[in-house]
């Protein structure tokens, strides 16, 4: 692994936090390292991954799509995990760790809501009170996940500052933690932030790659290409990490191409010249910032891919050329979502549909050689509010109007 200094991946990573958070991060790092050496912790986590999360998640051959595209495509159905995405792997691991540390309260940030809902569920399962910070823009467009978090007993706090999205939720969670770390653990949801978070999140997410390696081995092959979408990058680093040492495995990270090339229309950090080295939210990486270093607005149809930065290890692996980064637009992601739903009976989350879109594109260009595995990091039911508004606008509109009418009638 390319860790040269503690907490760094080449020049990226580090722990750029106000002094107040230094000690809680040290405490977390110690506790995490101890837990990873503790057979009881590992056993308990494994048991819950199996009995509660539903692991292992399946690996399936996409027979129809492979035939249509003249390629050999497999899908790691990670979205079949409980709460609908890979996020539960990290949330469950960290909430269990928080319990082991003697913490009595958990906080989390969430963008699309998937990390929030996973943390809320894990907290309910393990009997911990949970507060989730969520940008108000995200909360508005991901109402089903807000409802889900509340069903699991979490308190969802709407964040009205800045761009009112994921990065602002992270700021708010950091503020809470700076005043509450004595009894509170902050469950950060992506493989970024100050050390040791990138290591913790990668470790808990690495089960995706480990299972994929075992499952492909059972079928008698080593994948030639792995494709994953990259927001902050937790599903990608978890999927890729078991294969990093094998140079023959080609890895592709797909960023949100959004609706255009201009600043504010996408969230492309690695596959063009839009980003810069920056130090934000406790770590150094590639970020979308202006000349002064102010964070720029981003856009993606998927709330999980519009974060302006990228996990430090992925930034380093991208610069080293170990991972190839590319992009898919909003439109391409929607088309891929429809394609796989119609032909394979598999519904990708909008985030993961970006990875599917690139598989389709490469296959059409005849450059998808050998066996490819796409990580479907999330399933798409959570996005029905968004996809319906685009793909069947009129029907959706009349449903909502009728639904409102029904609601008001039953209210009386």
């Amino acid at each position, binding site marked *: 692994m390319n860790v040269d200094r503690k907490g760094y991946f080449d020049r990226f990573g580090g722990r750029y936090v106000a*002094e107040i958070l230094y*000690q809680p991060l040290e405490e977390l790092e110690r506790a995490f390292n101890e837990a990873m050496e503790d057979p009881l912790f590992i056993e308990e986590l494994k048991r819950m991954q199996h009995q509660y999360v539903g692991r292992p998640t399946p690996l399936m051959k996409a027979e129809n799509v492979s035939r249509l595209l003249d390629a050999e495509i497999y899908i790691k159905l990670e979205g079949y995990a409980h709460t609908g995405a890979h996020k539960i792997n990290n949330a469950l691991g960290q909430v269990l760790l928080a319990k082991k540390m003697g913490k009595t309260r958990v906080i989390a940030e969430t963008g699309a809501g998937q990390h929030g809902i996973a943390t809320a569920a894990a907290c309910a399962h393990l009997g911990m009170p949970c507060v989730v910070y969520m940008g108000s823009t995200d909360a508005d467009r991901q109402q089903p996940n807000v409802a889900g978090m509340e069903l699991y007993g979490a308190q969802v706090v709407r964040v009205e500052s800045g761009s009112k999205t994921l990065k602002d939720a992270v700021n708010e969670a950091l503020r809470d933690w*700076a005043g509450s770390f004595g009894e509170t653990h902050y469950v950060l949801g992506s493989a970024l932030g100050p050390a040791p978070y990138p290591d913790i999140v990668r470790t808990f997410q690495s089960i995706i790659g480990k299972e994929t390696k075992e499952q492909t081995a059972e079928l008698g092959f080593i994948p030639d290409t792995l494709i994953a979408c990259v927001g902050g990058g937790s599903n990608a680093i978890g999927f890729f990490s078991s294969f990093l040492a094998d140079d023959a495995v080609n890895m592709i990270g797909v960023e949100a191409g959004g609706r255009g090339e201009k600043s504010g229309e996408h969230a492309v950090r690695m596959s063009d010249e839009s980003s*810069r080295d*920056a*130090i934000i939210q406790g770590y150094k990486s590639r*970020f979308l910032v202006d000349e002064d*270093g*102010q964070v720029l607005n981003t856009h993606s149809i998927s709330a999980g891919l519009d974060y302006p930065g990228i996990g430090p290890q992925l930034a380093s692996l991208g610069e080293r050329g170990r991972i190839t980064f590319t992009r898919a637009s909003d439109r391409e992601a929607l088309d891929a979502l429809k394609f796989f739903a119609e032909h394979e009976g598999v519904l990708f989350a909008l985030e993961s549909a970006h990875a599917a879109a690139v598989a389709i594109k490469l296959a059409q260009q005849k450059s998808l050689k050998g066996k490819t595995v796409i990580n479907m990091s999330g399933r798409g039911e959570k996005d029905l509010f968004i996809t319906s508004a685009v793909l069947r606008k009129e029907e959706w509109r009349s449903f909502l109007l009728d639904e409102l009418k029904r609601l008001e009638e039953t209210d009386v």
Partner: protein
Amino acid sequence: MSKVRIMSHLIAGYPDDEGMYAAARGLVEGGAAYLEIQLPFSDPSADGPAIQKACSEVLSRGYRVAQGMKAIRDLKVLYPQVPVFIMTYANLAYCIGIESFVASAQESGAEGLIIPDLPFDADEGLNAACEKYGITSVIVAAPSMSAERIEKMTRENRPYIYAALRAGITGEQTHLDESILSFIERVRGSSRVLGGFGISTGQQAALLAPHVDAVVVGSAFVRLITSASAEGPEAITSALKEKMHKLTGCTEPS
């Protein structure tokens, strides 16, 4: 009894250029020992809601770091006797280039820099650049620091240490207890201590004043600027001057 020394907080460009000069005037005429001027950053995760909201308002006008530096230069021309510290976040210094940033801070007449998310032992060359340009880089110390880390910090022998007195964000009340006073003693070393986080009343300032070189008051001023700004610059000046009198003159019975 001696007057309480106050380091008072301003946000460059807030509520607007004219209002900021009016605020500075109120603070200086009220007797500020130091001015701490914050260059707004889009993601100020160590600040509370009052400062955060003010910063995003300034940035929504397209405010640039260079404008902030110029404002500081102007204030130094008006009030050469009051030392100014620039407070901001790592990324503004880092993206512009640590050395260029320090050079322009020095050129603006600032005494030093306070950048809480550049830890003293991973500061990207900030302190070295400050030494080169003859200004000071102020370490922000916190009560959660381990004894080893405090010792490592005091070995730096910096001219100033900023002691963040409570575990948390700016803008909430502070209760001064024994642990806070012992924390101040432990971080002091050979440095002058600027102590604050959550100080908003004359009574709090008077409690703290004997133990520090200056008492830092931040969010309380920003909130006052916010509420006075609707009535115009004169209202800002007089509100801040009055508040400053309360903070500095608090040794008299009220």
